[in-house]
């Protein structure tokens, strides 16, 4: 197992009595593509700025390659940043922007030229080497910003919502480009986004940030299938959150009751006792709508309700079913499976309990 390249030990940041980052622990391996994912204002940028050295943590320790960084100023840290607004120097052309860091490190002239050209080739911008940065499009400026950072061969590349200002098509394109660049240069990427799809598509591991806390830090599949909190479940993809109470428990099952149904689930490692309130999370795509006579797997719950709404989303249909006076759940079915169903119809829902997560309240 490789030593972590970046280690955050319970770092916190307080701005004028408001704590925006609260006790974050993270250990990032060399070469990993890690994404900080969270809604706007959750503290992602602040975490990134603390790693870059633009903010000092109020508490906690930051280490890069085992070296404590808390007292190291930004210009001496072995990291480079791709800023959200690119921050390309307007008085320098593309070449001089990219050469900026190398010149400060007093590289020989010929070496600088070679490296700048290689970096430009990496981002496919060789043709624009003498261009004025003001004349470049948003996507081209983005590429120059990436080249300006990677040309310095940092141990870690920090990217703060680098695609935020691009339109959707260009975004998709640049996501693939970034993945390729990550593979080609092999350095560690720490990527900030509030777009969960982007995070899931690009990362080796996703750190979900919720109100300054690290809610979960795991590979995308695990974040999706075993979210650690109802917030994570709701933020990654869509989910149905259903309040329940633990009505009974035996050696390896809990009996859970909601306002409209009850079911029995296999125990997980949570310490839940009868009488406690819990929240269930079932993904719309895990729910199956069945007609009354259709066969049903044994041990799977079956809940009946009224179909209240159907919405086409591409080739899928989102079906809303009222299963209790307070509870409407949504199911995602293929358009083919949903054919012929009408609003107001009585339907039954079933799902595999392995695809349901139980959170203690």
């Amino acid at each position, binding site marked *: 197992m490789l030593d972590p390249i970046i280690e955050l030990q319970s770092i916190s940041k307080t701005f004028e009595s408001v704590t925006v980052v609260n006790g974050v622990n993270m250990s990032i391996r060399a070469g990993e593509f890690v994404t900080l994912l969270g809604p706007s204002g959750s503290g992602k940028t602040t975490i990134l700025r603390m790693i870059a050295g633009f903010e000092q943590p109020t508490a906690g320790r930051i280490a890069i390659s085992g070296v404590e960084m808390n007292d190291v100023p930004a210009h001496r840290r072995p990291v480079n940043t791709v800023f959200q607004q690119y921050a390309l*120097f307007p008085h320098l052309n593309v070449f001089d922007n990219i050469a900026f860091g190398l010149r400060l490190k007093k590289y020989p002239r010929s070496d600088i030229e070679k490296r700048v050209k290689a970096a430009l080739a990496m981002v496919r911008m060789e043709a624009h080497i*003498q261009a004025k940065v003001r004349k470049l499009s948003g996507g081209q400026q983005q590429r120059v910003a990436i080249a300006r950072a990677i040309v310095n061969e940092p141990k870690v590349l920090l990217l703060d919502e680098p695609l935020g200002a691009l339109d959707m098509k260009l975004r998709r394109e640049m996501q693939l480009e970034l993945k390729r660049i990550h593979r080609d240069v092999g350095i560690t990427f720490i990527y900030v986004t509030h777009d969960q799809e982007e995070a899931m598509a690009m990362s080796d591991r996703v750190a979900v940030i919720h109100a300054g806390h690290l809610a979960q830090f795991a590979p995308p599949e695990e974040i999706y299938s075993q979210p650690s909190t109802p917030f994570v479940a709701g933020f990654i993809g869509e989910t149905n959150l259903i309040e329940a109470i633990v009505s009974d428990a035996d050696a390896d099952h809990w009996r859970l009751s909601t306002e409209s149904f009850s079911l029995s689930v296999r125990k997980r490692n949570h310490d839940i006792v009868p009488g406690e309130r819990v929240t269930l999370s079932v993904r719309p795509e895990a729910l199956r709508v069945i007609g009354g006579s259709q066969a049903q797997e044994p041990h799977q719950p079956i809940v009946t309700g009224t179909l209240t709404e159907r919405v086409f989303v591409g080739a899928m249909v989102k079906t809303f079913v009222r299963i209790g006076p307070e509870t409407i759940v949504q199911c995602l079915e293929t358009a083919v499976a949903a054919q012929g169903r009408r609003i107001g119809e009585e339907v039954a829902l079933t799902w595999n309990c392995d695809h349901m997560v139980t959170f203690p309240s």
Partner: protein
Amino acid sequence: MELRSYGDVSVVNPQRRSLAERLKRLRSRWMMWMLLIPVAGWMIVFFAFPQLLMLFISFMSQGVYGGIAYRFTLDNYIQMFSPVFLNVIWTSVEFSFVVTVLCLAVAYPFAYAVVTASPRRRMFLLFLVIIPFWTSQLIRTFALMFLINTSGLLNTLLLQLHVISQPLNLLYTPFAVYLGQFYAMLPYMILPLYASLQSHLESPEFLEAAQDLGASPAQAFWKITLPLTTSGIAVGSMLVFIPTLATFFIPLLMGGGKMEMVGNFIGNQFLSSDNWPFGASASVGVIAITLVLIALMFRFMKNAFLGES
């Protein structure tokens, strides 16, 4: 600008422009002219006309008993290449250059300090810069003379403190002229620098990017802040250099007439030598120099801003 962009929008679909829209366009044009007339009238009567008159006189001959003889000549322009006049021009250019550099050297750190000060302090410091604009420059020059003359405040203080035994002869020296001009021009340098540094430091993204790429604070200043505030430096330098080139009463009052600038030289042509045509050609010459400088400055700024290497 507003009016023009409005025009552009309408042009997008010329056929379907409604009557109301046309009227609105017409009215906005009409409004524009109405607003321009007072200013344009003022400029024509008090600026363009006197300048044209000056240009006209500069091609006339000097009368036998002074005054203007209405005979065309180029003599006044040829006379500008006489060593006496070239010498005066050179003194003025050198003086203006030194004063501009002095102002820049003092104003830049000061403006930087103002921008980075706490809001309360910033208001106070800006207030100090703006106060001089509320007083006539002539009065401020007299006040400065009062401060540094042989029996003035400075000498009295130094004598009382036994720092010196003889009063210092400061007034009526070139030093006094430099001091007077520097003092008069300093706010004109500070304000554009303040504006330019303010907008640069307000968004620290470029400085952070420089630091991120390994620049120490000092390197970031020389490589980023200074080039990105060139516009402030250029504007401030113009605002100091051009009036200093034409300065008139400061050398007269504080230099005791010993230091002759081109402004004084021209003044003398009109007031004592009674050679209006040469005075006129000399002022046309100064205007020409000024225009060339402004053109050079704009060109320089344009290059600095479009990132040509």
